[in-house]
């Protein structure tokens, strides 16, 4: 049962909510009887693993997806059976929506002020009035210096903060934010959280913030976790060890995986009322399933990772540099952009068989470094050598030829074909390099990254985290000498992030040089080397 904070009417009231999606293999239940109340003015952070239903919940609250069953009330509007005018009126007047990808929110045709003023204009305000209000909103968030810029000239953090301003300029009652910091480093993420919290506080609005980032808790009054389409746990971030299981009004409660593992593989339990509450007593372990084989979220990635190592290179070592050989070098590289020096004097040797993590705050040049390393962006000074070739000596196609000979790139913006199935995307990556189809390798990567059930689903139907795992698989399916990945775990829950980390480590062990731009501790933990741009 969710908590209704005393003293206020709920700004969000969800009861027994079901939401089904049509999928090629049948209907998929994204939400399964969820109940949740958020009081007015409350700041709620929602965690949950990939595919648990976080984004769906937000889409329902934003009146973008109709509930299949149950009741939903947002800012006083009953969304069950609401007509289109009611829903659009809700979004226009009372909701502020912050998307996880700021470039989807901000239009390149408009400058920052007009982007922020857009919702006011939609609400019928005159242009001058709307622009004035938008400037005030930017000013309140300390972004007035960006007013005359175009969205494409903003850094990721700047763009996301402008997106926040655009979502809040009209003074909404409820702010819904979906992974607003997924592509930002910690410092930029903190700025976004601060901006969100300040703006919500100023407006007296309610905030529902969906994120994987545990740091978001610092702006939250309450944190909840969603698993399998239901609320499973909640806690007060201000009170240590306050996490509790959620028992909904129909009596559903979800046991944490760790607790179930500790208790053995229960296939039944007896609930006994005690003076302190309810005692669950297991009725025994399954004879058919050995301990540890339960299909819990924790065990699946491990199995997949094991599978991914099935085509072990020890049996047939791939041709290429030997472990420890330098496959790429940055030597005193300097890169500037729009008058700002992003990288200055950066040097790096990337060696075969290692996992290198490039970390640093947002805007510190992580992505720029990866692009420079792979010949996708120019350098102002210094030298870049890739697979033995000096990139400065090559033209655009020459650099492409070097990459073709053994470099895989997974850019942050995504490189997947939305309309293609997962497996087709992987096959296309090999096609693009003129490589023959390799179903065994595709199968192994899908298994290792937990993509097998998604193999025949179009990418457009995948969640952000699932896409990231497909992007990792895509980069490895071409059997690269050097794999370069930009923020491959930014939208992943911890379990899946560990899976990706294991996969990359495996790839490195098999001789691949892996370079990752990330600030994810999971990756930092397994890295053979870390280049921290924040310290440069």
């Amino acid at each position, binding site marked *: 049962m969710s908590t209704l904070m005393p003293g206020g009417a709920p700004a969000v009231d969800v009861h027994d909510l079901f939401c089904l999606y049509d999928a090629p293999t049948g209907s998929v239940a994204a939400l399964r009887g969820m109940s949740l109340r958020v009081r007015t003015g409350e700041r709620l952070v929602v965690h949950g693993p990939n595919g648990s239903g976080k984004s769906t919940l937000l889409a329902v609250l934003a009146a*973008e997806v109709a509930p299949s069953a149950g009741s939903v009330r947002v800012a006083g509007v009953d969304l069950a059976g609401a007509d*289109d*005018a009611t829903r*659009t009126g809700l*979004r*226009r007047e009372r*909701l502020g*929506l912050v998307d996880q*990808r700021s*470039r*989807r*929110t901000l*239009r*390149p*045709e*408009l400058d920052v002020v*007009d982007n922020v003023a*857009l*919702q006011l*204009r*939609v*609400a*019928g305000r*005159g*242009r001058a009035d709307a622009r004035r209000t938008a400037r005030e909103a930017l000013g309140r968030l300390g972004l007035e210096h960006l007013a005359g810029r175009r969205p*494409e000239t903003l850094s990721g953090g700047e763009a996301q903060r402008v997106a926040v301003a655009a979502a809040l300029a009209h003074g909404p009652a409820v702010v819904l934010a979906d992974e607003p910091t997924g592509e930002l480093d910690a410092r930029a993420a903190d700025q976004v959280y601060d901006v969100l919290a300040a703006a919500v506080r100023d407006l007296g609005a309610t905030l529902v913030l969906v994120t994987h980032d545990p740091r978001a808790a610092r702006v939250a009054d309450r944190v909840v976790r969603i698993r399998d389409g239901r609320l499973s746990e909640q806690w007060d971030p201000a009170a240590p060890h306050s996490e509790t299981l959620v028992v909904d009004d129909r009596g559903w409660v979800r046991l944490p995986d760790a607790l179930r593992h500790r208790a053995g593989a229960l296939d039944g339990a007896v609930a006994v009322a005690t003076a302190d509450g309810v005692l669950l007593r297991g009725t025994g372990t399954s004879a058919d399933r050995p301990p540890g084989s339960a299909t819990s979220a924790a065990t699946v990635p491990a199995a997949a990772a094991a599978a991914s190592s099935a085509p072990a290179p020890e049996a047939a070592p791939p041709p290429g540099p030997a472990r420890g050989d330098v496959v790429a070098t940055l030597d005193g590289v300097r890169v500037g952009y729009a008058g700002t020096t992003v990288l200055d004097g950066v040097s790096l040797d990337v060696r075969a068989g290692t996992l290198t993590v490039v970390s640093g705050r947002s805007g510190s040049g992580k992505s720029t470094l990866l692009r420079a390393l*792979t010949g*996708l962006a*120019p350098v102002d000074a210094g030298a870049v050598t890739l697979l033995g070739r000096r990139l400065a000596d090559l*033209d*655009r*196609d020459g650099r*492409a*030829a070097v*990459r*073709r*000979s053994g*470099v*895989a*790139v997974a*850019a942050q*913006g*995504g*490189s*997947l*074909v*939305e*309309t*293609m199935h997962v497996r*087709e995307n992987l096959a*296309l*990556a090999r*096609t*693009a*390099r*003129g*490589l*023959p*189809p390799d179903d065994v390798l595709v199968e192994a990567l899908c298994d290792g990254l937990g993509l097998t059930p998604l193999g025949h689903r179009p990418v*457009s139907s995948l969640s952000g985290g699932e896409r990231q795992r497909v992007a990792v698989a895509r980069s490895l399916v071409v059997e690269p000498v050097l794999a370069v990945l930009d923020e491959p775990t930014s939208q992943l829950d911890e379990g899946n992030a560990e899976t990706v980390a294991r996969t990359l480590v495996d790839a490195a062990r098999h001789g691949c040089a892996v370079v990752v731009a990330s600030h994810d501790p999971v990756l930092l933990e397994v890295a053979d080397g870390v280049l921290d741009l924040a310290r440069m």
Partner: protein
Amino acid sequence: MGAVGQLTRARFAHRPGRWVLLVVGVALALAMPVVSAATGRIVATRTLSDTIEQLPVGERTVIASYGGTADPSAQQRDDALVRAGLARLTDSPVRHEMLFGELADGAGDTYRLGASDGLAQQVRLTGGRLPRSCVPQRCEVLLTGTTTSPVLDPSLGLVVVGTGVRTDPLLLPGTFDPGPAAVVLLGSDPDALQRLSALEQFPRGSGWVASLDPRRIAALGVPTYADLSRQVSDDLALRIRALVLSVPDDTLLRADARASASQGRFALLGGAAAVLVLGFVLVAAVGLRREHREVAGLLRRRGASAASVLGFAALGAGASVVVGALLGTAVGWVAGWVAAGTQPLHPSAVGLATASVLDALPALVLLTAAGVVLTTAVLAWPTSRERTAWHVVELLAVGAVAAALLVAARGAVGAATVGGDPLAIALPVLGLTAAALVAARLWVPLASVVSRRLPASAVAVRLAASSGVRRPLRTVVTVGFVTAAVGSVVFAGSYRATLGSGSADTAAFEVPTAARATVGPQGDDPVALEALAPLPAPAYAVVRTVAGVRTSATSGDAVQVLGVDGAVLPLLARWDRTVGASSPAAVAAALAVPAPPTGVALPDDASTLTLPVRSWTRSEPGDVDVTAWVSVPDGRERAILLVERRGVLTGPLPDLGPGRTLSAITLRESSTGATRRAHHVGEGGTVTAFLAGRLALGPPAGTATTWPAWSSRTAGVAVTGTTLSLAYELTGPLVVVRPGLVGRVPVPVMTDAETASHGPTLRLDLGGGDTVAARVVGTLPRFPTAGPRFLVTDRVALAAALDDLQPGSGAPHEIWAGDQASSTSLAATLAAAPWDRAVVVTQEQRRSVLESDAVGQGAGWLLLVGAAVSLLVAVVSLVLLVTGERRDDAGQLLAHEADGVATSTLRRSLWWRAVAVAVPALVVGTAAGLALTRSVSTLVALSAGGTTPTPPLLPSVGPAWTTAVLVGGLGVALAASGVATGRMLRSAWPSGPDQDLR
């Protein structure tokens, strides 16, 4: 709508390229209805102009005339009334003219006397001066037509004061025309001349003459002009007794009807333009859909209402369609203005261009509205219902095919109805739409199959194929559109070739050999001319008559009967089209008959035919005329009335050249006998015996014939030695005695299917109870120069059969001459004397006339323009395809480049996307265009000149045109796509998409 408007403006300003292409494409396509309307107007006026020019000079007039003497007291009033009336019909000067009936002078010669009030401007003086005065007793006149004055009766009071030459065709034209060789005395005051005392009671005609005013007719339109002329005629007839207004309205209306019929074809092309517009708009809208979806999604997330989002869709591409429509209208206006500037009948090119725009306005509005609706629908169509869109495509494809089949099943539409038949007009639209939908629907499965068979090394092609298959909407829409455009181009080309071929067919049908000659206006017979001045090419006489074929006991059908030599059949041009079945040799074999018995050969040097009368028993001498018929092998026959003189019947032999034979002898009641009989009846005689007698004739002088096979149906014939004995009784108008007459077998004929349906043997009714027996040996779809009901037979057999009834009636009066090899020399000969006295038409001349016909040329021009516009718009759509793919796939292309794919490969992959569209579209479009040509040629019975085509139009591929389309069109389209893709990805460093389109 403020946010929507602002966002729309920002989108136009941000990346104007695609919008500009959309505007240009719509403008090109929507210029077509205006160009079509302008062409229709120009064609109509050119047809009018040509028709007026082809009229004899004297008929290019408006004449108000009346016979008899005008009331002198009303002359001024009548003059004012008529001039006012004619001023409504023409701006040309009105002349008052009059002409007396033919007068005889003192020398026995004839002359005419007339007057015109514009004489000074209508003659050129060659001597003396112009007439100045005219009073009832004395009138000055000008002598024209000769320099020798007729011997005038002084009592007339005519005084010749000068001589001159008539220079103005409007001087005494039409009803006043005295003839080209007439001697005419002309006064300068018609009213005064009419008061000439000596001729007070002499018959005359007078009236007012003005030339036709083509500009006025063009400005009013022929139907309006005809109505106006009728009104003027009625008005004048009510006020002026016996006044008749003569205007060649019927000729003008026929020409106008022909031009109007051709408007239907222009509407066909307008329909194709509609497909172009809607198809192109669809292509453009699909290209914009992905980005629009993102913007619309953002607006929805910002709380925009459904109406606002829909308005955003309508405002965006809709505004482009409207701008394109306005631009297209302007382009069409300019085209009309330029084209009208070369037409003499248009006083104002601006007026014509503006009128054309007004003509096309309903179509423009409709197409623009349809374009806006279609664009909006495509942009606003929910992503979740894209599968529904495919079902809609399938349904539309089935519906379009079914509708096209339905139209085809209705049968042919004639020239009179094509303009008003919406289904006929819809046929090209339906056909092109069906082909486009089918091609679009089949593209994905075909591309999937092909892409699986591509080698791994063909990276660019495989990337292109995978792109098309994975996100097919834009590609298949472009496939559909380019298919329709190619179909339109091929249709335009092959239909143009069909019309051109149809003109050649018509020329060959009307003039089957290189030239055809018929009797001239002065009665000059081409068969005689051929004997006089042989043609430098094979020439064959043709017998032509009309007969009735009985279809029931009380009714019959008229059929044309042609007798031709078997040898001429191989010379008939375009046999497969003009006849349409069998072969010349087979027809000749089927019609062949044994040579009939010939007559008695006469000595070549004889100038007189003399037949000894061995005996002639009769009631009254002179009651019966005996006529001998002399013929030559080319079929000419001459009648010689024989005069009985000293025991012989004799008459002058005409000089027909060698080979003369006495082919028949006829007996008929003489004028003396007829007079005698009339007197007998007048004197109360109630019983009149038939003229009867027995005539025994010896052989013609110089011969010793035994009269082989001479016989008669109405007289007893006996031959004894060289004596031909006839026992006759004139129970009918004529007794015919000829060789082989009795026992003549029915002539073999080939005929049309309907005539043949009346039985294997036919009795051809030639009038007066005369019939000819015919035996049907086969049917033919049609035969050159004949109408839909015809009989063709051997010339000699037909001539013999006709001559059996009436000697001389089987004589040919028509010649088909020459073959293609001799056409040039033949034309030169035919243009010179004596052949210029016959009516001669060469096939080349006829074809040239048909091809230079304004209606035909207008149709050809419009088809060319339509083809060019189709091609241009198709090229634009391909460029839109690759630019759209470049933009929407920017992220994917960057990913491929990051994977190491060279930019040249990526550019090729983009170019291959255009190829993947162009190749199937060319194949299906070409097939559709050819099928459509076949259907339209069959179903829309309209020749290039706007008449019902004879023979029927047969589709012609136009191999040169089709090849040019296939090779040139493909080349241009792919070159344009190559240029577009060749400029892509050329920067030194790659850049990502400016938007996140996930």
